């Protein structure tokens, strides 16, 4: 009965966590193995627990029940039932053996009892006993940096964050609306593509061609306005030649919209997408467009986004693929009038859980004069607070670092750059002011 109660509860709450959190496998669902497997497979394939109608169309004979018992009770009961089912044949066999050889019966019983002991333990790594693994990984990182990190396309930012780590990396880029988040995201993606890797870009707000034109702008500096508006300032022959050359590259830049995910972008679907296209980097242009697979009735947006970001980080760890996401800062982030500064972490819209789960958080702001201000708000393995300024020509996709006395680059590099800037104008014919 308890197995049926658990299945009913999963369907009623649309939540598989009772199974996932308590390591309940198909063995526990004696007589309901098919139903159990169906639930698991459906969630894997579509990102959610099937609804009752779908489930009943597959298993029309099952009679679902109303369940008011707590998860704790149900789990204790099914574990007890499971132990019973496993114990009966052992006891029966021991009784048989006892009739002819009590020593053999006792030996069998002792051995079997150990196996009967259910394991509720979760796995882990002993970082003391397995320290050598760590050392080997360190050596690998040291000798083959390119296998562990991508550069991100902003040379000075790379110096601060040591690029994009190729595993266990969830980078959040946040800003208020219309500040260039998507451009920065695509700039990083384009750069990783230029390095020769496969990139996946989930674009909830723009179609593949719009992303493609931005790619052309970032990759080869074609005027974005010219491309978008079909203006004459694009040399059609030059563009045509460039377009003809692009497919000769072996690596891909896959753009998918919510329609490609059947309107529901879940982490499980992302996983399939990554595996299907053998992606090396994934970008999601708006975490709020994703669907939380762990959603329970009553969950608010904060919980939902926290769950999604947690699942994205797990995905990055599992598949060894860095994930970049864009998040919007709320209106309190930074005033439009405010001439300095980028939004603060606590202004990430609807969730501080996102920042909690991220390995790096980068805040950006674009001033009305086309200056892109970047600030590191969080990084697990490095300093925070580092600032950088870039002069950004949005039309040609060029980003030029503007050295500043308070930026986070190495002092000698910064001073050299400032000196070089001054030197450019040492030939001024006279003093202007």
């Amino acid at each position, binding site marked *: 009965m308890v197995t049926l109660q658990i299945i009913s509860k999963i369907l009623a709450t649309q939540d598989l966590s009772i199974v996932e959190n308590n390591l309940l496998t198909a063995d526990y669902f004696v007589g309901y193995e098919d139903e159990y497997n169906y639930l698991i497979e459906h969630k894997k394939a579509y990102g959610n627990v099937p609804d009752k109608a779908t489930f009943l169309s597959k298993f029309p004979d099952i009679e679902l029940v109303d369940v008011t018992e707590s998860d704790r009770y149900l789990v204790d009961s099914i574990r007890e039932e499971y132990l019973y089912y496993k114990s009966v044949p052992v006891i029966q066999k021991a009784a048989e053996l006892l009739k002819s050889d009590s020593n053999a019966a006792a030996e069998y019983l002792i051995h079997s009892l150990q196996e009967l002991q259910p394991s509720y333990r979760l796995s882990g790594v002993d970082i003391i006993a397995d320290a050598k693994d760590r050392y080997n990984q360190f050596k690998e990182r040291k000798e083959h940096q390119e296998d562990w990190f991508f550069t991100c396309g902003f040379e000075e930012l790379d110096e601060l964050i040591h690029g994009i780590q190729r595993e266990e990396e969830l980078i959040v880029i946040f800003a208020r609306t219309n500040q260039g988040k998507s451009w920065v995201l695509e700039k990083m993606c384009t750069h990783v593509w230029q390095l020769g890797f496969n990139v996946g870009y989930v674009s909830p707000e723009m179609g593949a061609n719009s992303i493609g034109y931005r790619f052309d702008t970032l990759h080869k500096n074609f005027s974005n306005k010219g491309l978008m508006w079909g203006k004459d300032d694009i040399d059609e022959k030059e563009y045509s030649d460039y377009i003809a050359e692009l497919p000769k590259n072996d690596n891909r830049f896959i753009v998918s919209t919510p329609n490609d995910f059947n309107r529901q972008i879940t982490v499980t679907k992302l996983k399939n997408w990554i595996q299907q296209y053998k992606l090396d980097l994934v970008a999601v242009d708006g975490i709020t467009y994703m669907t939380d697979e762990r959603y329970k009735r009553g969950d608010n947006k904060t919980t939902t986004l926290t769950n999604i970001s947690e699942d994205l980080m797990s995905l990055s760890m599992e598949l060894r693929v860095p994930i970049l996401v864009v998040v919007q800062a709320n209106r309190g982030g930074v*005033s439009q*009038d*405010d*001439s*300095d500064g980028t939004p603060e972490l606590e202004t990430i819209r609807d969730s501080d859980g996102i920042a909690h789960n991220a390995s790096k958080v980068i805040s950006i702001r674009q*001033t009305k*004069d*086309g*200056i892109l*201000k970047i600030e590191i708000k969080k990084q697990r393995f490095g300093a925070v607070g580092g*600032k950088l*300024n870039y*002069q950004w*020509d949005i039309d040609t996709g*060029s980003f*030029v670092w*503007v*050295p*500043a*006395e*308070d*930026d986070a680059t190495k002092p000698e590099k*910064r001073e050299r750059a*400032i000196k070089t*800037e*001054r030197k*450019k*104008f040492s*030939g*001024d*014919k*006279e*003093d*202007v*002011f």
Partner: protein
Amino acid sequence: MVLRKEDCWYKNVCTYDFCTNCIRYSEMKYLMQNSGLSKNRQRPIALDGSRDPEPFKLLADIKGDIVNFVNNGESLYIFSEKTGNGKTSWAIKLLLKYFDSIWAGNGFRVRGYFQHVPSLFTTLKDFSKSHESLRNTLMSVDLVIWDDIASTKLSDYDAQQLLIIIDQRVSDGLANIYTGNLTSQDALTKAVGQRLASRIWNMSTLVEFKGKDRRSEW
């Protein structure tokens, strides 16, 4: 940033050939746009010092060493009984020279601000974000021009507000340039109160212009 060469302050003197992505232009533009100066005051101006040779020489010296003037948190009071003889123009000239000296490595920060004092109190009475933003700017930038200070008698409240900001600036070692028409500490005291008058008169280099109104000539 799209550079319109005709807008560039250095268009007649610059010999560097590459205008695209010119950092000097974008840094100067940022400093100017956030300086509180109206567009027509963001242009370099030539001043004729023939009527006030001594004060002009002193100010030219300060201009030549403007970065140290600011870094040392110094203050200057340029005053004259007469109007239109170059007090404000000189103050702005010093501010622009400061921008010209520090644009490299500035990193798009607001460094100097021009504040017409009689207009300040209207903004400060508006308890909005722009009020907060202006107050923060006045409290923190390297150099503020307090133009036409004490041209009208301040209410106790206004004088108190101004004192708080200037007091803070002086304590933080930030530089100030005041311009005004009051030529004695007594007159200043009557207009802005003793404490503020003392900060302006006793803690500044005093420069008096005696030339006549030359607005029509400039």
